[in-house]
Every structure is written in C-alpha cells, then in structure tokens.
C-alpha cells in the first residue's frame, strides 16, 4: 500500500531520495517516506483492523479443526465435529498419500542392514495375541485370480514351490518406533507370477481372520495394498524371523513384510489375499489413519 503512495505523491506522501547500496550483500538503508500524520493514522488503523480480522479468522478456522476430545477437555460440551471438518482434514491426508505415491519407485530399494544392527522387535498385536491352535489348519486363500478360481495353499507348498529371499530391513511403525529385523520368505512378486491376478486388478486385499481385539474376540484384520508395492522386490511373504520360523507373536506361519509401508500394513498371520480392480477397505483407514501409508 505504501508503494501506491509512492507513485502518487499528491495524496500527501512522497518518497525521500536515497543512495543506492554499494555492495550486493551489504544492508541497504531503509526506504523512507514522508507522510501526512492523518494519512499515517488512517493506514495504521486500516492495516491493524485487517490483521486483527485475519487473526480472528485464523483462530476460529484453525481452532475448529481441533479434535472433539480436545474441546471436551477445554470444557466445550457441544459437538464440534462436522462433515465439512472431516472432509477438510481427510483432504490433507489424501494429499499426503498422493505425495507418498508420487515418491514411490519400484526400482528403489530400502536400506538393508547387517546382523549386528538387528534390534529387538516387540509383539505389536493391536489386540490379544491369538492362540497357536489356528496354525495346524492354516491355509492361504487366493481370490480374484486370472483363472477365475479361488485356491487354497498350505505353508509347505508356499515354502517349497517358491525360492527363499532374505533381507535385514527396518520396520517403521506409525507410532514412531522402528526395529531392524532379519526376515526370510518368498517374494510377493513370485506369488503374483505363480498365481496371476485378473488383468484389471490394481489392488490386493490382505486379511487375517485370526486377529483378535483387546478382549480376545475375533476381529478380522483387512488391509489394502496397491499391486505396484506388492511387486516391489523387497515385499516378502515372510516365513522366518531372525533365522527361526515365525512365532505366533510375529504372525506364524506367514506374514506380509512390506518395508516401503508403515508397520500397520505388514499383516501378521495372513489367511487370505484377494485381487481387486478398486481400492478395498482398510482396517486403520477406517480408524482415521491414511490409506496408502507409503514411507
């Protein structure tokens, strides 16, 4: 606004001549303007009001995005959640997922580590850990195949038909912790080649029917995985952890190991994989987390 005043000195303001700076990095003397006091007060009032209104708008707009739990603790009883607020915050989540997808490259390998860099990995089952009884009757069911059939594979078949790959990679949890562990198993890509999905498939729904909630009741776990990530050479269907067959804690007999995704996509005790053309539902996306989860 002061620039406008400069160009039009008749409105009681005029620039004061000043010297050009001598050196590029040297501080320049400030631009000085002569102004009528009345005009000065008027501009001050206008800009202060404008900034005040902006501050108020930012406070109300930003504040309304706070979670309901935060409002409750501040003593606000009214329900401040609205479809618009949900939509807006989910848009931010979608943008971040799109950025993650754009950053992904099928040719980029994640860093690998040496055995001396292995760190402990806790049992991070969200609910209760299932009883090992399920293992004897365990099968992996594949659906959405090019053949149109639904097939069941046992662990012996999976372990002998496909070549074994080993890797020591970092598993990163959405909570922020991480663990370096030594995994072995077959490549998801090899399974996709062995049992090709239908041609229009872009997604895999990976599920575990043995998952339990915190009180021990069945709580099937389901997760969406884009096939581009499933084909990554470091995406394994792991059968071994730190040189030993998987224990129940870590998803015996077969778990997904997808180091380019957050830990919550690394489904334990997989019981079914279904190939789909459209993005399937995701257990944690339904609970407010992002869907793509690429890291």
């Amino acid at each position: 606004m002061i620039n406008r005043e400069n160009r039009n000195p008749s409105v009681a303001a005029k620039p004061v001549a000043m010297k050009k700076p001598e050196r590029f990095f040297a501080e320049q003397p400030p631009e000085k303007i002569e102004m009528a006091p009345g005009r000065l007060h008027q501009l001050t009032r206008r800009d202060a009001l404008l900034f005040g209104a902006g501050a108020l708008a930012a406070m109300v707009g930003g504040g309304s995005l706070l979670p309901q739990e935060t409002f409750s603790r501040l003593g606000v009883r009214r329900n401040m959640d609205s479809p618009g607020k949900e939509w807006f915050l989910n848009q931010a989540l979608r943008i971040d997922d799109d950025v993650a997808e754009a950053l992904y490259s099928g040719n980029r390998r994640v860093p690998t580590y040496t055995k001396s860099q292995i760190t402990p990995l806790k049992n991070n089952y969200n609910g209760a850990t299932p009883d090992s009884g399920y293992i004897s009757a365990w099968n992996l069911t594949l659906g959405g195949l090019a053949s149109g059939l639904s097939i069941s594979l046992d662990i012996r078949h999976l372990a002998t038909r496909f070549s074994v790959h080993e890797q020591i990679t970092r598993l990163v949890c959405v909570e922020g912790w991480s663990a370096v562990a030594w995994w072995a198993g077959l490549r998801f890509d090899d399974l996709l080649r062995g049992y090709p999905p239908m041609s229009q498939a872009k997604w895999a729904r990976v599920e575990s029917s043995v998952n339990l909630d915190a009180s021990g009741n069945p709580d099937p776990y389901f997760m969406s995985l884009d096939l581009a990530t499933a084909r990554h050479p470091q995406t394994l269907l792991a059968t071994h952890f730190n040189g030993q067959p998987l224990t129940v804690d870590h998803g015996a007999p077969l778990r997904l190991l997808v180091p380019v995704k957050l830990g919550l996509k690394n489904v334990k005790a997989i019981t079914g994989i279904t190939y789909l053309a459209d993005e399937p539902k995701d257990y944690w996306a339904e609970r407010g987390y992002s869907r793509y989860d690429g890291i």
Partner: protein
Amino acid sequence: MPNSTSTLPHQPYVLVAKRHHFLVRWSHWLNVPILLGLILSGISIYWASPVYQHKPDPTTGNFDVAADIGIWICAHVPGLHQYSNPSDLIYNHLSLGPGMLALALRLHWLCAYLFVLNGLMYVAGLVLGGGWRSLLPRRTDVLDALKMFRYYIGFPFAKLTRRKWLHPRFNTKYNALQRAAYFSVPVAGCLSATTGWAIHKPMQLHWLPAIFGGYNAARVWHFWLLWIYILFLVPHLALVFADGWDTLRSMIVGWSTRVEPSQVIAHDQ
C-alpha cells in the same frame, strides 16, 4: 484567523521507514497458528512412542519421561494432588491430548504442508523486500552479541538502581543478538521440515535420515528443534512488549517512525 482557501506554508509531514515486506509480515503472523498446531499435534504424536523412555516402572508400568514429569508435578504442586491422571498431565496441557494419534497425525500433516508453503512465502518476502541482507551474520557478530547480552541482562538491575545503562552502538537494522535469532529461526524451520520428512519418508528418501544420523536420530533432532522455537519465543515476546508499539506496528503495517538506527537505540534507553 487563517483563510480556508489559502495553502499552508508548511505541511507537517512525518518520516517513516519501511521495515518489513508484506509477505514477510503475513508469513510471520501465519506462523502463530501453524506452529501452535504443529507443536500441539506433535506432542500428541510423541505420546504414542516417546523418544525418551526408561525400563517400565514395576508398579505403574510407566516408561515415559514426560509421564514421570507429570507424576512428579502432581506429587509436589499443591492443588494438583487430586489430579485424576498424573501421567497424562503434560499431554493434557501441552498437546491435543493423549490417545489420539490418528487425529494428531492428520492435523500435523496439514500444518506441516502449510508451514513449508509459509516458509517459501517468507523467503519470497525477504528476497522481494531485500530484507535478507539484514539477517546475514557478520564477522563482528559474536562480540557484538555478547555486548547486547550484557546490556539486556544488566538492564533491569540498572533500571531498579536508577543507574545509567548505555545501549551498545550499532548502525544496522538489527543488533547482533537479534540478527543471530532472526537468522537461526528460519534455519531451524528448514531443519524441522527436513527432519520431519526424514521421519515421514525414511525409505523413499532414505538419504535424508542418513544426513541426520539415521531414522532414530532424525526423530531426536525433530524433537529438540521444537525447543528452539520455545527458547526463541520467550525473549522475542518479552522484548517486543518492552520495546513498544512502534516495533509491533512495524510487523503489522510494515513501517516504523524510527527512521535512523540511532532512534532505535535512543528509544531502547
């Protein structure tokens, strides 16, 4: 009685100096809600997996140092002895709250993108307004900053004892201590953004956490950078209010009525 049609022989003008480009002013104020959102949601995210942990306490099972601080405060501060959940005291008051990771992450990403865009707006304002020159460190800054520090520390004592306490002389827009602060905070902003991306995309951008010493170290960097803003904010607010309306106005409307550095010093005294 002067004739209303005659022109006045001398019109009383005031001289004002341009201080801040309007992009610098807007980005400065937008930092308030954005940084507040980042800090509150950030501490909620920290709750899910604290960087500073110890072996679980045998009786309470608590392993979080921030929870320990809450428990200690509740045990020692009168009026807080009855607080229902001492281990959540810190999170209940300095974050969005415990147990809301998904909500906190959503807000943190939103604010993080806005913070980066706002940072670019600030840089654009510095370039367009030429203000970046005033932020560059100088060779004499270490000594001058010490002089300023001595001045600020001694100032309240000198006021109380009504002694003369001379402001160090300088002929730049900012004194050395201000320059150090106003230069470091944008650098901290850049580091917060880069360590944030290092934690956010440790696989696709694996060279980024490597710069900061690995994924876990990048989390520690990101955590401590938060304290830079808090450390900056305390004297920043105190000095703006001590300095008065002209300084505050210069960040709202862009100009100051103190046109020479000597006037700034005279006012400070």
